[in-house]
């Protein structure tokens, strides 16, 4: 019963946040609206033509009415149509999702494995040479802006190898359905670029929380029972140490659904992020709203899932 009440409250709160974000985006857009009609009609357009375009797009209606139409469509599952291409926003998103999902899922697998791996190694061998090595890596990862890393990888890996005739790491997205090998070759550098900063964050998080966990009483109990060190660390320690890591992963994946703008730009992948930048610059309101709402929904949902997961994993946490 408590659980249901918690869930209801959080979902309601989430809906309010989403609504606020949609209002904020809409309002922000109309504080200084880009002149969509003029961009569409070109320089030599007559006022009549401009008025016609505005009328066709519904831009001549009062702001509140426009918002009402949008909300009405949204509640019927219609995300609206793009001002520019005239295509439904949902089909535009569908076209942009494959590169973004390839990038985010592959990158996440990479950073989870490497991050947790390095974290565990440096926690179990604290103060060793390996720990030093890892922490230095973390430092560099923390200090390395994503786009610098991407640029350097393109220069050092792609360009140098392409001089030798190896065109594996070419920038640009290649659909996995057409040739998985080409797809893989082109995704490797973007994955590394996206994952590096995250590896730093995750290994530091894992290291800290595993060291915390290994200091707990139940670990002493487990050792006293005569369990092997391996079992103590991995079965007893790591299990609870991974709770905060899971939290972080949920939120990170959710935010990245809205596109990894920087990595997509460096490697010209043409995913959600790059389209969003273009939409923002041109003032394609409904596409922006769709992406903002998609991302915010994912974040809100991830937070709820994480909170619920927490209460199952750790009996001391209560849902309030």
């Amino acid at each position: 019963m408590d659980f249901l009440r918690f869930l209801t409250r959080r979902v309601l709160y989430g809906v309010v946040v989403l609504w606020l974000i949609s209002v904020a985006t809409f309002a922000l857009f109309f504080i200084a609206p880009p002149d969509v009609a003029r961009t569409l009609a070109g320089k030599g357009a007559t006022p009549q033509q401009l008025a016609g375009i505005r009328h066709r797009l519904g831009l001549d209606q009062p702001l509140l009415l426009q918002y009402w139409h949008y909300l009405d469509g949204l509640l019927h599952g219609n995300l609206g149509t793009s001002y520019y291409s005239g295509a439904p926003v949902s089909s535009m998103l569908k076209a942009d999702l494959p590169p973004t999902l390839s990038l985010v899922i592959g990158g996440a697998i990479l950073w989870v494995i490497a991050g947790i791996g390095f974290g565990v190694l440096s926690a179990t061998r604290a103060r060793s040479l390996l720990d030093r090595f890892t922490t230095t890596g973390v430092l560099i990862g923390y200090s390395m802006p994503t786009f610098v890393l991407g640029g350097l990888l393109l220069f050092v890996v792609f360009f140098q190898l392409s001089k030798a005739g190896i065109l594996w790491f070419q920038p640009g997205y290649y659909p996995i359905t057409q040739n998985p090998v080409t797809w893989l070759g082109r995704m490797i550098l973007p994955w590394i670029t996206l994952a590096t900063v995250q590896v730093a964050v995750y290994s530091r998080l894992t290291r800290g929380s595993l060291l915390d966990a290994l200091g707990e009483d139940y670990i002493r109990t487990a050792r006293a029972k005569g369990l092997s060190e391996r079992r103590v660390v991995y079965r007893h320690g790591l299990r609870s140490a991974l709770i905060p890591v899971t939290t972080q992963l949920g939120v990170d994946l959710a935010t990245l659904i809205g596109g990894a703008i920087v990595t997509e730009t460096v490697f010209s992948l043409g995913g959600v992020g790059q389209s969003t930048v273009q939409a923002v610059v041109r003032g394609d309101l409904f596409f922006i709203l769709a992406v903002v709402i998609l991302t915010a929904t994912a974040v809100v949902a991830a937070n709820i899932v994480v909170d619920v997961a927490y209460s199952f994993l750790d009996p001391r946490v209560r849902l309030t």
Partner: protein
Amino acid sequence: MSLTEVQTIGASVEQASARSIEGRSPWQLAWRRLRSDKVAVASAIIIVLLCAMALAAPLIASATGKTYAEQFRDTGTTAQGLPVGPGSQFWFGTDSLGRDVFIRVVYGARISLLVGLSSTAIAVLAGVIVGLFAGYYGGAIDAVLARFTDTVLAFPYLLLAIALAALFGPNLLMVIGVISFFSWAALSRIVRGQTLSLKEKEYVEAARAIGSSPLRIMFIDILPNVMAPVIVIATLLVPSAIVFEATLSFLGVGVVPPTASWGNMISDSLSWYTTSWWFLIFPSAALILTTLAFNLLGDGVRDALDPQTERIFAGRRRRSKPLPIEGPTLVEPPRPVTEGE
């Protein structure tokens, strides 16, 4: 040995011991710890040099007789119109428009440091004030702050920055504003938390009893005791602000050419790296060196102010503990600027 001699020795011993137990404030102790941290000192020196370079940029430019926006169409580009490599005339080579990369890197430091330091200053000021009020008064102010920080943290900040740039045209003030706006919330949360516990302390009660005003209590009694985490976060906010600015400029929504910023230089260079590596490498190196130095200094400051906590980037450890059981962490570093958040 005469009696007087013994007495003098005794006196000098007393003096010596009096000297050696001379009282030191926690700040003095922290300063001593920081000064003995070689990595932190080296980082501080690099930062000072960078600041000097940024301040002296016009002098450097006039000494070489070039300006950062000047396009050397005849000497700065080859006959095919390609950038010229590093050499005696152009130390770091030229870019695609024949501009001197060295001068532009020097000028880029101005933008990076200006944005990094000023947006951190604004964020610290706002974060401290809001955090103190929310923690001290609680209630409605606190609730509003909590909801507001939730919203700020849930907002895709890169998108907001791009939107603002599209609306008002990219400019430096907007960049500083956006970065400050997204930096203060985490800081105010920490100040709020500390204030919550400090306001229950006896000395605050005593201050209240002698009739100190709430403002006085907040800023004279509580503030000095929350300064340690504030200083640590501030030092670590600088590099993240610098990276944020570079990222915005890279995407074309921060500082735009002809003004030189490391971000927009790297952005330009990405279409030229196949022929002109210098154009990519030098600004990248400058950016990495700067963020690295600030991160290392921040780590050192944190270590000096709170020796109990684990260092983030544990360079060389001075204390050797048998088992690394960590105390509660004082502050988490601000997360590096990642995608989309």
